Structures are given as structure tokens and as C-alpha cells.
């Protein structure tokens, strides 16, 4: 196990990047809005991981910021899900590519 070495900041950054990319893939490819919102949560969490990894190097500011990020995520989830419900009520679907009322 030790062969893999001490866990450095870089390890965390790579993990964060992986989660970020997964989130981006979700946002770009899925049709279900709920899952897109979840992917956004993945992205936000990747950012949090980065902040915390750096906070180990530079002090507590990163942790404070990650708390703000979590706050934002809560607000975003609430509003996002509210929109989904309103959307579903009107269109009976949760597919993002069927939201095209503005398209001519």
C-alpha cells in the first residue's frame, strides 16, 4: 500500500478533476433534468474538494469558502427543483431537450 506513496495535494486535485469531468459529462449528455441537477452537485463537490485540498496548504479560508459553496448548492437545488416541478406540471416531462417553447 505504501508503494502508492504518501497522499499529496495532487492526488486530491486529480480526484477532483475526475469528479468534475464526470459532472460535466452528466450535464452535457443526459436528458433528464433531475440528473443534470445532480451532475451540477457533482461539479460543486469537485470544487469543494479542491478548496479543501488547498486549505490544507493555505489555512482555513478554503474551508470557509467551501461552506459558502454548500450554501449556494442548497439554494440552487431548491430553486432548481422548484423549476423542475413547475416544468413537469406544465409539460409532463423532465427532458431538457423538450424545453423549447422559445425556439421558433
Amino acid at each position, binding site marked *: 500500500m505504501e508503494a502508492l506513496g504518501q497522499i499529496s495535494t495532487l492526488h486530491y486535485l486529480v480526484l477532483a478533476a475526475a469528479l468534475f469531468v464526470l459532472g*460535466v459529462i452528466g*450535464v*452535457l*449528455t443526459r436528458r433528464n433534468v433531475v440528473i*443534470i441537477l445532480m451532475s451540477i452537485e457533482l461539479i460543486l463537490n469537485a470544487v469543494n474538494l479542491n478548496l479543501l485540498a488547498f486549505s490544507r496548504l493555505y489555512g482555513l479560508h478554503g474551508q470557509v469558502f467551501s461552506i459558502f459553496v454548500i450554501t449556494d448548492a442548497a439554494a440552487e437545488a431548491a430553486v432548481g427543483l422548484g423549476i423542475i416541478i413547475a416544468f413537469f406540471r406544465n409539460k409532463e416531462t423532465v427532458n*431538457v*431537450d423538450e*424545453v*423549447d417553447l*422559445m*425556439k421558433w
Partner: protein
Amino acid sequence: MFFLDHIWLIPLFPAFGAAVMFFFGRKLQKQTVSIVCVGMVALSFLWACGAVWQYQGWAEANHHQPFQKVMFTWLGTDTGHMNYTTHDGTLAPFQADAGFLLDPLSAIWLLFVTGVGLLIHIYSTGYMAHEGGYYRFFGYLNLFMFSMLTLIMGNNYALMFVGWEGVGLCSYLLIGFYFHRPAASAAANKAFIVNRIGDAGFLLGMFTIAWYFGSLRYVDVNLLARSGHFNIGDPIITAATLLLFVGACGKSAQLPLYVWLPDAMEGPTPVSALIHAATMVTAGVYMVARSNALFVLAPTSMKTVAIVGALTAIFAASIGLVQNDIKRVLAYSTVSQLGYMFLALGVGAFAAGVFHVFTHAFFKALLFLGAGSVIHAMSGEQDMRNMGHLAKKIPTTYRTILIATLAIAGIPPFAGFFSKDEILWQTWSSEGGAYRILWLVGFITALMTAFYMFRLVFLTFYGKPRMDHEVEHHIHESPKSMTVPLVVLAVCAVCAGWLGWPHSLGGSNRFEHYLDPVFAREAQVFQEEGKEAQLVAGEKEEKHTNPLEYGLMFLSVAAAGVGFGLARRYYAAADKGYAEPIEQAAPPVYRTLQNKYYVDEAYDYVFTGRRKIGDVRLGAMGLGEASSWVDAKVIDGTVNGAGRITRLSGKISSWWDKWIIDGLLVNGLALITHPLSWFARLLQWGLVQWYALVMVVGLVGFVAYYAWR
């Protein structure tokens, strides 16, 4: 030092009462409501007495410093994260404490606010006994007490502003207490909006002070102002004080912002007594007196204050001469007396002004409560034309109102005489020259005051009964809970003035000496300013040798006597359809006065725009109308015109369209465009994820560029 150490409890008691009313009031019995609310104010009064008493001892030992108790930092932090740059480039922390300050000035306010407040609370338990919203009324009253106490006890301008807005809010709520009455809610709105103008001035003044002095605490500001670093007539201080005075004008109903106060009489009478006569409207005076160190550095502001005060005094008094609504007479009387106070402040006689506030609080509260008692007896009738011959029927009310009238008219030895005379004497002796005109104004006002007050007394209590038979039948003396406060206040209205028994009459003027620690430094400034006369006056007063003072004293008493005589002559035997002397002598003047110099109308013309001048509407509504006109005429006209032109050109172009455009260009071009537009459609094709994808690609590009640049 128990009371002094827990001085923060004084405002907290009524706050607690208000909170209880807010949360549980609806479910409480009226009796419980009375006990809680009156009890809280009584506690507060007792506590205030204790604190002031203990302050005496504390001050002796501490060089008459103001006593401060800082609970915690309310705005800003101690860590220096909220610093800002002052005018000279240094950093100052933006900080305001939740702290309380007690010095002679606030002690006086503290005592009479809680004292008069307590009496009026007791009175209200009788007056409001049969009204709906009992708990709401007392909740508001307690909230008002809390705000007022915060205003006078705060140790910085920011906290004062909190109280300032708080009392404004309570005033609004209480004026509009009968919110189902359109007049009341309109009056409440008016009071609130007019006060906003003043508050804006206060706020700006406060910011200026913060910017200039780097602190909002009175102690810091006074120390700096008195340190001699600033020149007399410093323009920024002048600006700051003028702005503060705008605030004072709003709250204390001075020209030109006085218009809300007469209308405020729509509220219940105890409210008029407490808020719109005794306490809240003196907040402006308090603020100017509190900022005396600044005001003496700005002679221009002082002059402004004096002139505005004198003008307000005579202006309101003259309107008061002809009003028929008993409460309106008192309202204009209040405005006029407030003018007196500002006159005193403006000529540098801060102590005299404060003294007048003090005496005025008692007799004006008494007058209002008495008027309330009269209205109560008259089953809600407020018009003096329909009263008369009440003296025998409601004797206690009559006697107490008579005492208050004597006091306000300036008959010795009632309270008003001392304070009013002090103001007139200080005005006369301050600088001479043009200031003598201010004295003359004040003197005439005194004459008018005596006239209209005795007019009120005669119309109400003497003459023939002019009310309906039905009403006459119901006249009765008010319950004990209402008369007892009247009597107590009457005693105060007699005696309060004796605290300031002038030297010239063999007294010691303890009142002014008590205030010395607050206003002491002003003498020094006056010296630098070269106001010799003021100094001389002060010294002469010490020696009490000026014969002129006796002359003036006699003059003002004589004026009061003349007012009494005139009123007696015209109104003592008024019957139905009695004649107004002014109306007979000069009808246009009467009409002008009756319509209050058409000020409300003028404001309606100029500022609000509720009335039109000719066909033109000015003010806020005018602006709206103008934009509506622009919209309707210019814009729509343009549109319509364009439409007409379009229709014409449409005919031409339809031919053109059909053949040239459609035929040649459109169909021809479309054939070309369609394949080409495929690329453009890639940018906007209605799929959100596409936009996200573009973002990601852009991100890739950016990062790549910066990483491998």
C-alpha cells in the same frame, strides 16, 4: 451603582412589554394588558429616577463626565475588517455600539419622557377602555417608549437614528391607529413621508460627521469639535449641522416640514399628548442640543436655526388664532412652541431651549389630555363652536386646563412664564441688531399664544352651551384613571418652572447649572467668535443687575394680559353663531389663516401635484402625468404617424415586395441562405446543453492557451 450599571434595562422594560403584546396580546385580558404595559413604563420610570439619582453621585466623583455603558458592538467589528477612509485619509473603524449614555441632558429627557409617558399610559387605560385593539394600542405605546428611550439614551448618532426611525414608525402606527378611517391613514402616510425628507437629511448629516470625524460617538465627536482643530465656520461642519437641522425640522415640525403635525391629530388623543406634543417632537431639539459642540462651530447654521424657529413660532401661532377644532389649536400651538425652542437654540441659549422643552412637556401634555377629557365628555365632538359652558360640568378638567393655559400664556408663577421669558431675554440680549427683530417676533407670538389659548378656554368652558341636546345630556366627568394624571400634570405645570427660577427674580436657576457640564464649552467658543454681548448677558445675569430684563419681563406678562383681555372680550359670552373678531375686521386675512396660509394646497400644487395650476400639474404626480402625456402624445403619436406612413409605404412596397423582393431577392436568396444558415443555427438551436458544451469548449481553449502560452 445598581441602577446605573443596569441602565440598559430602562428601554428594555417597555420593549419587553411591546414584545409581550406583539406575541400574546391578542389573547390577553384588557386588565392584564394594562398591568403589563403600564407596569413596564412605571418600572422604567422608577429605574430612570434611580439612575439619575445615582448619576449625581457618580458625576461628582468623575468630573461631570457623561456616564457611558457599552453593551456590545452593534455595527461593525473590533477586528478592523470594516474600516473606511475619513476625509483626511486616515482609517477609521466603522463602528456603532449598542451603548447607553447618561449626562444631564439625557437625564432631563429621560425623566420627563418616562414620567409623562407613565401618566399618559395611565390616562390611556381610561381613555381607550372601550376601544377595539386595546392591546395593539398599548403595544405600540410601549414600543414607542422603547424607541424614544433608545433615541435619548444612545451614545452615538447611529443608535439615535435607530430610535429616531423607531419613534417615526410608532408615530405612523399610532396616527393610523383608526386605520379604517381614510383621514387617519392619509394623515399617517403624510407624517411618515414628510418625516422621510427630514430623515434623509439626518442620515446625510450623520454620514458627513462619520466622514469628517471618523466616529459617531457623541463623546468622540464632541472632543474633536472642542479640541480647537476646526475653525469656526468650517464649511463641512456647517453643511453637516444644516443637514442635521433638516432632520430636526422634519421630526420637530418646523417650517417647511411642519405640515404633518396638525394632521397627526387624527390619532387617539393620548397619542397626540405623548408623541405629538410632549416627547417625540422634541427629539429634534434634543438632537440639536446634543450636537451643540458642532452647532457653535457653525454660525450660519445657528442663524438658520434661530430664524426658522422664530418664523415657525409666529406662523403657527397666527394659524392657531382662528382654528375651531380643539385639537388643531393645540397642534398649532405645539408647532409654535417648538419654534420657540429652536429660536432659543439658534441664539445659543441651549439651556433655555431645553428648559422650555421640559416645561412644555408638562403643560402641553396636560392640555392634550384635558382636551381628550373634553372630547370624551362631549361624546367625540371636537369642534369648539359646538361647545361652551362646560366649566361647571367637568370641573377637574376645567381647572387643570386653566392651569395649563396660564402656564403656556406665560403668567407667573406658572411654568411657562420662566422658560418663555428666559428665551425672550436670551434672544434680546444675544447679539443685538437684527436679533432684536427675532425678539419682536417672539414677543408677538407670545401675545398671540395668550389670545388663542384663552380663546380656547372661553369657547370651551364659558359662554352659552352650543351643543346638541343629546350631547349635552351625556356630559360627564372622566373616570379617575383620566383625572388623576391630569391633576398630577397640573401640579407639574405649576411647579416645573420653579426649577429655573431666574437670578433676576432672586432664584438660582438650578436648571441651567445642572446642564452646565453639557453646554459649558460653548462660552469659550462664543468668546472666540466675539459674541461679547452673549457673554456680557451671561455675566450680567450672574449679577442680576440688568433693569432691562425686568422691563422685558413686564412686557411679556403684559402681552399675556392683553391676550387674555382680548379673548375675554370677544368670546366670554359666545353664543350660537358668535362672531369671530378677525373675520369681521379683515375677512381675507381670516380666510388665509383659516386655510393655514394655503400651505397644504401649495404643497399639493408644487410637490405632490394633487392639484393643478391651471392645466399644469407639478410635483410627483405632475411628473407622472407629464410622462403619461409624453407617452400618449409623443411616443404614441410617433407610432401612429409612423403607422400612417407605413401604410402608405406598405402599398408601395407591396408591389415592390411581390415582384422584386419575393420574386427576386427572397426566394432567390433563400435558396442560397438555407444551406449557409446551418452554421449559424449551431449557435442557437434551443438546447441548453449545447450552450453548456460551447462553454466547456471555450474553457478548454482558455486553459490551454494560458497553460501553454
